[in-house]
């Protein structure tokens, strides 16, 4: 066990954990931030996507000891009032069915648009293909990412 001083959603957070504990479980079970989801534990489904220093990463596969001083942003901290353009586009297109994967989808989409402000169809498809939606809301996700891109540009 060791002490880790993290910056999560702009707040300093201190946790006692094994160095190899994945960030996902630090967020969920130690810090009570349950918006980030567990789906596979091997970085294959994208449900646990968060931003590490602005980049989308799979928190299930990142040991807490590797976070260091890089700021962590989770779905709870993506915007103050749930009004990030990607979140608003998700509402506009009524994307969710079960909703479980959508936090990860939104975090991936936000990072994608941060890197490519005006993605074409192929860039959206490729950029969003690390996130599985078992309900099959892909066509709506696609439309929502396009809408968000238009609002951001």
């Amino acid at each position: 066990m060791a002490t880790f001083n993290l910056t999560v959603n702009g707040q300093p957070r201190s946790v006692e954990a094994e160095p190899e504990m994945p960030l996902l479980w630090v967020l969920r079970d130690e810090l009570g931030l349950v918006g980030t989801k567990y789906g596979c534990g091997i970085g294959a489904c994208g449900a646990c996507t968060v931003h590490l220093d602005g980049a989308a990463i799979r928190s299930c596969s990142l040991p807490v000891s590797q976070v260091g001083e890089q700021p962590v942003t989770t779905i709870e901290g993506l915007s103050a009032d749930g009004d990030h353009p990607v979140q608003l586009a998700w509402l506009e297109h009524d994307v969710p069915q079960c909703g479980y994967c959508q936090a990860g989808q939104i975090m991936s989409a936000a990072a994608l648009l941060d890197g490519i402000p005006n993605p074409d169809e192929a860039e959206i498809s490729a950029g969003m293909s690390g996130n599985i939606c078992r309900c099959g809301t892909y066509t709506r996700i696609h439309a929502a990412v396009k809408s968000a891109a238009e609002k951001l540009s």
Partner: protein
Amino acid sequence: MSHNQPSRRSFLKVTAATGGGLLLGFSWLTSCESEKAEKARPELVMPEKWVAVNAFLKIGDNGVVTIMSPNPEIGQNVKTAMPMLVAEELDVDWKNVIVEQAGLDTDNYERQLAGGSQSIRHGWEPLRKAGATARYMLLQAAAQQLDVDAGSLRTENGMIFHDGSDRKLGYGEVASLAATLPLPEEVTLKDPADFKIIGHATKNVDARKITTGQPLFGLDLQREGMKYAAIVHPPAFGLKLKSVDDSAVRGLPGIHDVVTIDAAPEGVEMQWSDVNAFPQLVAVIGDNTWRVLQAKKKLKIEWEQTSPLESTADQLENLRLTLQEGKAEEARRDGNPEAAFARAATIIDRTYSAPFLPHNTMEPMNFFADVWEDRAELVGPIQTPEFLRKTVSALLDMPEANIDIMMTRMGGGFGRRLYGNFGVEAALISKAAGVPVKLVYSREDDMTQGTYRPEYLVRYRAGLDEEGRLIAFHVRGTGAGESPVFANRYPAGTVENYLAENISTESNVSTGAWRAPRSNFIAGAEQAFLDEVAEAAGKDPIEFRLELFDRAIKDPVGEENDYDPERYAGVLKLVRDKSGWKTGEDQRGVAAYYCHNSYVAQVLEARLDAGEPRVNEVHCAVDCGIVVNPEGAHNQIEGGIIDGVGHALFGAVTFTDGKPDQQNFDTYRLIRHIEAPRAIHTHFVENNIDPTGLGEPSLPPVIGALANAIYRVTGERVYDQPFVQRRELRG
């Protein structure tokens, strides 16, 4: 939940004070959800007090209305659609409605189950009546308060108007009085032409919580003093627990206990929902999910074999032998099929197969349980809460009345959460360890637990006469534990000489309902087969099907045909027209199917992408009667299509010596964004027929439409799912 106690107390006090309220016994989650709504709906001003008019709704003193959604929400969007039915007849502005998930409450609600696409169909009348009854009582109360005849009053958007005197009252001003009035014996429901909420696109009521990461799902639940539990079940079907050495686990940091449980002891009454290949389990209990998932790997467990360790090749051979030689049940016979085949000019004979499929809900199985000496509380994602309570009651030897069950929003169901073994396990673990626990399956636990869609094999034969008319039809199907054949569905009723046979194949792999059970395989097989029959008959596949429906409309064969041929033909004509279908399409396939009381027809355009089939576009025509929520309805249809395409292309679990070869998403392929259809166009038939299922019906036919489109693109028919064979199957 201590911070929610005051609101619960004030709510109960109000209920008691109003006397006539029927609403009793809500558990913690429902009682605090209205307050949580405050954060999600900042534009709403919360009332000072609530009055429960009946079990389905409570009215705030400022006119804000809370409507209970009685059925479990698995992503089929009933948490939006069911309250819409209440709100319509109550006549309130949807903007002033808060929706709460009801807990299991068999005194006040019927059929609190998510399955068979039946929630809206069964809720259609009772939910509208609940709204209409409340509206009636509010009108009576207003009549007393204004001292006028109730017949001189009208309602609009939560207000009651007396046009004669220009006076008006809000629902919140008369709710306390209304709740004390006697229930009417009968109420009149609206004419569909007057609907203001039903039929209007309405956003998912939980969308804001979902997009901001608020706790909603079973896996999100956290309680004071709660521990986490992980289980170990046998690694292969055919094995059971023999002994466990937990010495390497006890004493590890954060590990609280190790227990063994038996979820199916001798002599305890089980329910249909208690499908479970592995009732004896070892559970590790600790203070963090990751710690218990790591610790369980250190257990030393011995297994003993109780039945054969099947491999996929053995299973396929069993299916083949059963289909060829087994004694089948004759499910339906019309005319003389043997004689008709004997005189047929052409016989088409094809066999189709599909593998076992895990449900793979994105939220793995989990449940919270807090079991005491004389009472228990269970919270989690469950499609069948009533049956879970019966089993837990039997296993704990505790009256059902002492067991409180709350359903959380589910991260997918697809049938998996009809079978509540994980809830039962959580209760037994909590009892054994003496602490409140949240049981969490790892993805590997979830994917290898069984309760799979059965593997299936079906053989079709069709006989055509010299003119290409279908004169004989024979279907004989088998599968693990069940046959996939529906004897009385199309094309039964359209062919003079018809035979349907069912036979079950034994396997120790546990199986259960998977989105659109049996239909999820048989529709694709049947619709691909009819495509070949139409081709052999030299006819356009849509015209060929319509000719058969014509027969069923004018002069049906037999009396027990499970479909309305006019509505069936209607969706086929609609999709033909909307898609601009032309005879001789070279990239498009068609299919039509009826299940869960709804009719669906699809035209699908495919292409090849690096040798694998992909879908460009799907046109889908649907007749499900009245569409309650077009927004959610479109979403369900689109999701069913993508789900069907994905599983038909990629889905399979295979076995080596009883052990599932796929254990996580690195080896189990689910459809991804880049592989999804680029466009889906859904066209609903407009009519005033009572609404029917939407969560399942778009999935089954799309597998046939895809198979037929693949044939147009590649020139080769596909008979075995998944259509994109995995490398290990190709050898």
